[in-house]
């Protein structure tokens, strides 16, 4: 075991897998010699060579298209999109190509590729370094979407994603790269070292894709969340003294519906939390599923605490961010009936 922040844990996952499987290659903008703008791939090119870990031109469509070609050849590429806000030029390659190749060839070809991308706000990144794009991919048949919330999960889930034979989008909440975040931007940062999930095995382990984690057991209300919002939610219920069951979904496609159903059937109330914009956000799907499957257990309407339907504003970042007050308001609505 070692104490790792999320960046170190992700780096370790790469290291372990590059060592285990010589068909794995890592490509992306600045990932080679420099080791990535967030340092996730630091030292890997030196250790594994320039043909295993290499820089790419600034062309996200080219990165994903060539990675698809490499996967068709027989490699297992890990492609980094430097910020998920930059992923749109690659949308066609992801949506029309990577996600459908297995289907359109009836299994003759597949794309065992991981697309890693730092995502979410909270670092004063402005409109183009803060977005949460998970719903844009959850809507697409044929790609999996994983969003870890701790160093331990990040490493185990990334290893599972690399071993998966389908394309996996792996969104890394950059706000919590260096420490969990309680949602109060004006409080001092807590480092990962003080969090139990910073204890990370140095070797190989994996966490299955499609399994949620109940990070806090509770009786009064179920809160569905992922990524940065797991920590904000935990801090919120702690400070408000609410006995909530907090579920870290970890994977949104495929979704762990069983864990969600069991919890909502127990608590009878549900709040969905995500940082992404509200309309057609993944929360809308979660709310629909909960009412379809748990309607007769529900005591109150499902509530959503989300980002607003605006671009992510630079100076007003913390007004946009769905912090403890917005989550608290949703919880009160869910609990007052």
């Amino acid at each position: 075991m070692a104490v790792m922040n999320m960046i170190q844990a992700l780096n370790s996952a790469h290291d372990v897998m590059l060592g285990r499987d010589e068909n794995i290659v890592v490509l992306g903008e600045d990932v080679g010699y420099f080791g990535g703008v967030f340092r996730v791939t630091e030292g890997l090119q030196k250790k594994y060579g320039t043909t295993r870990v290499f820089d790419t031109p600034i062309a996200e469509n080219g990165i994903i298209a060539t990675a698809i070609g490499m996967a068709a050849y027989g490699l297992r590429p890990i492609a980094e999109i430097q910020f998920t806000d930059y992923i749109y030029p690659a949308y066609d390659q992801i949506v029309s190509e990577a996600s459908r190749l297995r289907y359109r060839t009836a299994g003759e070809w597949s794309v065992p590729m991981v697309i890693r991308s730092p995502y979410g706000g909270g670092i004063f990144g402005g409109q183009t370094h803060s977005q949460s794009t998970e719903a844009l991919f959850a809507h697409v048949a044929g790609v999996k979407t994983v969003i870890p919330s701790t160093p331990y999960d990040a490493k185990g889930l990334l290893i599972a994603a690399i071993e998966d034979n389908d394309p996996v989008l792996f969104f890394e909440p950059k706000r919590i790269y260096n420490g969990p975040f309680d949602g109060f931007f004006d409080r001092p940062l807590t480092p990962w070292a003080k969090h139990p999930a910073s204890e990370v095995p140095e070797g190989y382990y994996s966490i299955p894709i499609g399994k949620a984690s109940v990070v806090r057991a509770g009786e009064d209300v179920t809160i569905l969340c992922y990524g940065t919002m797991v920590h904000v939610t935990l801090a919120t219920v702690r400070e408000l003294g609410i006995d909530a069951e907090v579920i870290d979904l970890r994977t949104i496609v495929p979704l762990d519906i069983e864990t969600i159903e069991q919890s909502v059937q127990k608590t009878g109330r549900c709040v969905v939390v995500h940082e992404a914009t509200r309309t057609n956000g993944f929360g809308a799907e979660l709310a629909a599923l909960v009412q379809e499957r748990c309607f007769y257990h529900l005591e109150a309407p499902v509530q959503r605490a989300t980002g607003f339907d605006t671009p992510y504003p630079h100076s007003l970042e913390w007004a946009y961010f769905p912090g403890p007050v917005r989550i608290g308001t949703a919880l009160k609505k869910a609990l007052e009936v």
Partner: protein
Amino acid sequence: MSDKDPSKLRPNRPKLALHVPEPPFRPGDTPDFSSLKIPAAGSAPRPDVAAPATETHPLTTHLVRVLGDDHKAVGPWDPKLDPDTLRKMLRDMVTVRIFDDRMYRAQRQGKTSFYMKCTGEEAIAVAAAAALDREDMHFPTYRQQGLLVARGYPLIEMMCQIYSNKGDKLQGRQLPVMYSDKAHGFFSISGNLGTQFPQAVGWAMGAAIKGDSRIAMGWTGEGATAEGDFHSALTFATVYNAPVILAIVNNQWAISSFSGIAGGEHATFAQRALGYGVAGMRVDGNDALAVFAAVRWASDRARSNLGPTLIEFFTYRAEGHSTSDDPSGYRPVNEAKAWPLGDPIERLKAHLTTIGEWDEERHAALLEEAAAEVRAAQREAERKGTLTSASIDFPQDVRTMFNDVFEEMPWHLKEQQQAMVDELEAKRRWPS
């Protein structure tokens, strides 16, 4: 920006004007290609395979041609193929044309939803297949059926795909002609244009990473060179010196848009090689020998780690874009006949005849044989059904619709699969 009427802002300056390219001829016009510069066969120099890319660049405004007006092979690009190879190419091209005609008719007879011919372009895919190794990987568009025919892919497999019937290995999931066959080095065709071009580069990069000896060939039409994927393909190809051949089939028409709409008015498509520093050339796409020679040159180069080549095959789409298109609405009906580079099958046939390796009798026999082969395959394929012949519900078991979305079916697809089965059951009882 001032609120003032912009036209009054600087009255002394000339008014700006938008140029919207127009093809030289529209329906009713008499097509006249006499202003098109067609260099004589044999006149293009042939640089050494190891020459710097810049040495090939004069070829991007030239036209590599081997077959002269006298039907003889001339000049440094003559690949000096033996008669058997020439006859094999002729046979494949003839087969493709007959196959296209039969499948076009099958669509018109309502046996399938869609078809795309490659009439007039047969030499390009067939000769490219002949020039590459059997193990090299193609990332084709929908007009390279000649690759499959030349590599001996069973016609019946192609037809089953076109009919989306029970014999379709793609299980009816793809639009007709969007073939895929790994064993024949034919990557799955996408209907989204241009996407396969950088994928070919990625495959070639994979081969280079692994120290393989196989190369890739990516294909696009001239229309889709306007896509960002084209630029990415060339950028990645040059950056990583990828062992790839990038082919632009310039058949002059992207549905109803002439090549000028794709940027072909002021430069050739081959000239784009210059900006990327890769080898490039423009080749007479209706001259099977020139196509063979160019692809062989580029493959020798790629195989020796000397980098990618961009080849523009200059040709003409003699028929509609697809069965859903009627070109008489946007170009003169006799334009294909006026095309100065002739018909690729007629040209190869004339060459073989000129060198004493072919005659009318043998050609008539070939036509008959190929037609019989296509007819027999069609009969066999239709025994497995057509898109519209299925008597009960659908050509495929509906449950297969949910397979292969993922390697393992997640719960939500299992639920939807059951809902589909229930829906069919309910449909049988409808409206009760």
